[in-house]
């Protein structure tokens, strides 16, 4: 005897196509003003990228990871959350921080290697550097919300490369098994440094990696801000209603180098980059506005100028922040500082005073 016990499929969603045409059957209930807000935030993120990139080149900030190309994915998804929801980023989510209202100067400060930037924000967790590891504590956060009968849900961001890590599979498995209120948001930007998506795994989609763990899993065009918003909002609603976790594979593209320390011309072709530049998520929204006659160039210029001003102010403010003192090295290692650390701190303070560091 032989029978098919189970079969699966992966759905792909796109609301706005690359020409900005709407699939009305999928258009979510979203006011026009909100789409404009998304667009404005996306321009802000792009502007952030442009200016921080330059700032890195002039040595004023450290290594910077551009968002460029992933603005729809980041802003669209973050717009679907509530302020109380938990957000666990990896390191490329500058656009998510911006959308979640993080003070602009703090974002710059964080890229200057100054952790004081993360102080006091409980629901937007600090950047996670070890790739994929955040998926597990995010799962635990969601689990606690469920155990405490709280209504907040958790979203965790990570890349296509991160889905090769064991932590990712373990997180899926826990979330599925305990039906947790969490959204696994994978920014499949086609590259993990020099490793293309297809060399990362023989799995045809990343979405199907969730299905094996009983996690509802779906693909969305990550350069379609409206589509990303719609799919994330549905996942948020399901999580909040106790219907369990979702894995969203947002298909997008890292238009820039991996970080400012990388040179992507070593491993990818100009044609490929050109193909994706034509699918720029900002252009797509502009085409959409044009199609429905709510665009004019003056509005476009106004948005860009407003964003430039906002970022310039943030940078000026961040650069004026005084360098952290030696206390920062010691004060947050323990709730109560052990004696040994108190002594080491004193030692350093004396040295700093003497040398005028």
């Amino acid at each position, binding site marked *: 005897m032989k029978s098919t016990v189970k079969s699966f499929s992966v759905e792909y969603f796109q609301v706005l196509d690359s020409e900005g045409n709407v699939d009305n059957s999928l258009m979510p209930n979203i006011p026009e003003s909100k789409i404009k807000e998304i667009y404005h935030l996306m321009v802000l993120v792009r502007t952030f990228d442009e200016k921080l990139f330059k700032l890195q080149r002039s040595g004023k900030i450290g290594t910077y990871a551009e968002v460029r190309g992933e603005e729809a994915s980041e802003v669209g998804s973050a717009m679907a959350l509530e302020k109380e929801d938990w957000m666990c980023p990896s390191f490329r989510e500058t656009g998510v921080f911006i959308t979640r209202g993080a003070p602009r100067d703090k974002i710059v400060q964080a890229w200057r290697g100054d*952790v004081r930037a993360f102080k006091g924000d409980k629901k937007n967790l600090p950047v996670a*550097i*070890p790739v994929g590891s955040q998926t597990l504590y995010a799962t635990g956060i969601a689990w606690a919300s469920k155990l405490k009968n709280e209504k907040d849900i958790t979203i965790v961001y990570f890349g296509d*490369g991160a889905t090769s890590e064991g932590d990712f599979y373990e997180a899926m498995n826990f979330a599925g098994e305990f039906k947790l209120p969490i959204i696994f948001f994978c920014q499949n930007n086609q590259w993990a440094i020099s490793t293309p998506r297809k060399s990362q795994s023989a799995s045809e989609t990343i979405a199907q990696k969730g299905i094996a763990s009983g996690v509802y899993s779906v693909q969305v065009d990550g350069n379609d801000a409206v589509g990303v918003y719609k799919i994330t909002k549905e996942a948020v609603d399901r999580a909040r209603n106790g219907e369990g976790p979702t894995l969203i594979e947002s298909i997008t593209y890292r238009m820039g180098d991996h970080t400012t*320390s990388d040179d992507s011309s070593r491993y990818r072709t100009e044609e490929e980059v050109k193909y994706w530049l034509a699918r720029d998520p900002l252009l797509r929204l502009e085409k959409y506005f044009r199609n429905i006659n709510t665009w004019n160039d003056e509005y476009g210029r106004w948005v860009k100028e407003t964003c430039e001003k906002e970022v310039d102010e943030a940078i000026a403010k961040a650069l004026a922040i005084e360098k952290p003192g030696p206390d920062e*090295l010691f004060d947050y290692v323990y709730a109560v500082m052990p004696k040994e650390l108190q002594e080491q701190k004193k030692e350093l303070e004396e040295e700093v005073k003497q040398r005028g*560091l």
Partner: protein
Amino acid sequence: MAKINMVQAINQALKQEMEKDKRVLVMGEDVGVDGGVFRVTDGLIQQFGKDRVIDTPLAEAGIIGTALGMAINGLKPVVEMQFIGFSYEGFHHINHHMARFRQRSEGTVNASIVLRGPTGGGIKALELHSESPETFFAHCQGLKVVIPSNPYDAKGLMISSIRDPDPVVFLEPEKLYRAFKDEVPEESYTVPLGEAKVARQGKDITIVTWGAMVRLCLDVAEQLKGKIDVEVIDLRTIWPLDENAILESVKKTGRAVVVHEAPKTSGFGGEVAARIQEKAILYLNSPIVRVTGFDVPYPQFALEEYYMPNAERIIKGINSVMNF
């Protein structure tokens, strides 16, 4: 003889061992087409192809675990951790298996494998890109732990590590990668594992150190020239420890300072100091002093300068020993 930096020296060692021994292969994240994020494996994929220079999925437990399997089955993998801090993602394979297979199999199974990666701080990198975990590895009984301080040693130690029948963790101080060049012979040569080097002769005080701190200690010794005659011992191999080299020097100088970048408490400096007092206490004129990183997680780079041991701290340590 050509002058080359540490990146080029390690690259040469890998190339020459791969030419010599078909079992040697290189694997890790971005080591192939990209040549590694620091370019240590640059050009290898062009020469040896993608079966011997393997771009792996992004999964350290996967990389270390499967490399170990290859070693068990007779290959000699040289595994790159993109930064040594990410070896923690696969630490269970290092400690559970890599370090123990020989003992577990009564010497039947060789895990001849090199786990290498950029180590230590000082280059304003992101969080977890500046770890100094030599003590973790030294405490996985069954591993050897190597850390070069210059291009010449880096090449010779790498060749020895690849040829060694036991698993070797090879720590590459990232601050030194391009910091300076050495005259390095083009031909293959070895620097033996387990042998420290007297990096500078002196008669007043011994500094025991390793990795990126060696250069700094040599600079300090020069600064103190004419006042205090400093001997600098570069361990080169953390484990197995060249106890003799340390004791010989301390018996001569009667004074010792240990300098390392890793945090002080439970740092390997404690081990060095304990051995000196066990075996040479009567030769000492003063207590042994440690100059190390503070007992805090390696900070994000705005605080890096505060964390790193510097010349002032080393001189202060030396003075406290001299003036005891």
